[in-house]
């Protein structure tokens, strides 16, 4: 660069500095997926695992989702971490409605995804009964690796503009993967 006076300002020469073209939606979603301001809605024991993911050992700030915003109006991603009871449902719905578009929802753990084993009068059988959910992370609680998988899955979906819900798959099935050394959990199929 030349000196900062008006006489020395010149246009950038492509041959010297290089450039690339992109689509507007592409670079916008690229920016969105690496600056996910999160709202942690932490209600239960999954919060321990959430702390593990956010602490330096697993460190999801590597993925640009570091800053928590405890105002839903400033948040992009709603982390629903833990069991949601019927009594909490109005709170969760209101938080979701206060978030500005575009907004994403991640169901952290089995309880948030489907109610888990809380099949009773007090518990919502999955937050998708009341708010649309983008990513489901199974596990009770999920391993931090599974949560990072979910975060990367969400980033892929933001980049591709796909708003359909998705689930984090286990990297291997503990019921059938003999290398894990676990017992045979699943009965042979009736085929």
């Amino acid at each position: 660069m030349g000196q900062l006076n008006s006489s020395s300002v010149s246009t950038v020469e492509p041959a010297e500095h290089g450039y690339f073209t992109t689509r507007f939606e592409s670079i916008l979603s690229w920016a969105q997926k690496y600056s996910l301001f999160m709202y942690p809605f932490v209600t239960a024991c999954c919060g321990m695992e959430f702390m593990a993911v956010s602490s330096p050992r697993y460190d999801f700030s590597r993925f640009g989702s570091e800053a928590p915003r405890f105002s839903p109006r400033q948040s992009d991603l709603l982390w629903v971490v833990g069991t949601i009871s019927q009594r909490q449902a109005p709170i969760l719905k209101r938080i979701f409605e206060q978030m500005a578009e575009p907004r994403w929802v991640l169901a952290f753990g089995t309880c948030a995804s489907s109610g888990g084993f809380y099949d009773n009068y007090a518990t919502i059988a999955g937050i998708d009964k009341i708010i649309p959910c983008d990513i489901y992370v199974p596990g009770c609680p999920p391993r931090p690796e599974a949560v990072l998988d979910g975060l990367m899955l969400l980033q892929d979906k933001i980049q591709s503009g796909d708003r359909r819900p998705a689930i984090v798959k286990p990297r291997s099935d503990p019921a059938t993967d003999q290398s894990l050394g676990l017992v045979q959990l699943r009965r042979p199929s009736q085929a």
Partner: protein
Amino acid sequence: MSKLLIELVRNEFSDAVTASHSERGDETVVIKAASWLSLGQFLRDDPACDMALLVDLTAVDFPDQNPRFEVVAHLASLTRGHRLRVKAKVGQRDASRAEIDSWSGLWGSANWAERECFDMFGIIFKGHPDLRRILLYPEFVGHPLRRDYPAQKIQPLVPFREVDNIDKLPPFGPTEGMSFGRQTHDQWQKLNQPDDDL
């Protein structure tokens, strides 16, 4: 030592105690509901009892018995180290007249315990300063730990979303569960592919 405690209670409330037993350090006294308050007063204030700690207060529902409910309280003495379980049977078989005196004037911990008991079983604690639901919401109808409360019945505060197949939103199916549960992962792989039509 605790057998001594049962004797104390039996001597004091000879006509109100309907049963008692002592099983491996587990002492129980069953008493008529009318003597509930005076029994609590006695157990707390008598120097030989000195039950300063109300550990728990709850109820059990026996829908085929009359009286139907059994109010159960666990007491402990910090100075003497003995424990006692006290029971009283209340309520008709149709759950009416499920009333008993409140212990909230004797032990502070009875306040919330009795509110929970009211919330879950619908037992009225007479003399309670603030008898309303403690865990569930005021809009809830019924008492969920009664045996005749339907196991599947939910009372949502927020109406569920109007989406097709709300009971089995993708990627979950009717057999949703743990990740290594009843579904095969090939289905999920298919669901996550972008050109798959949900």
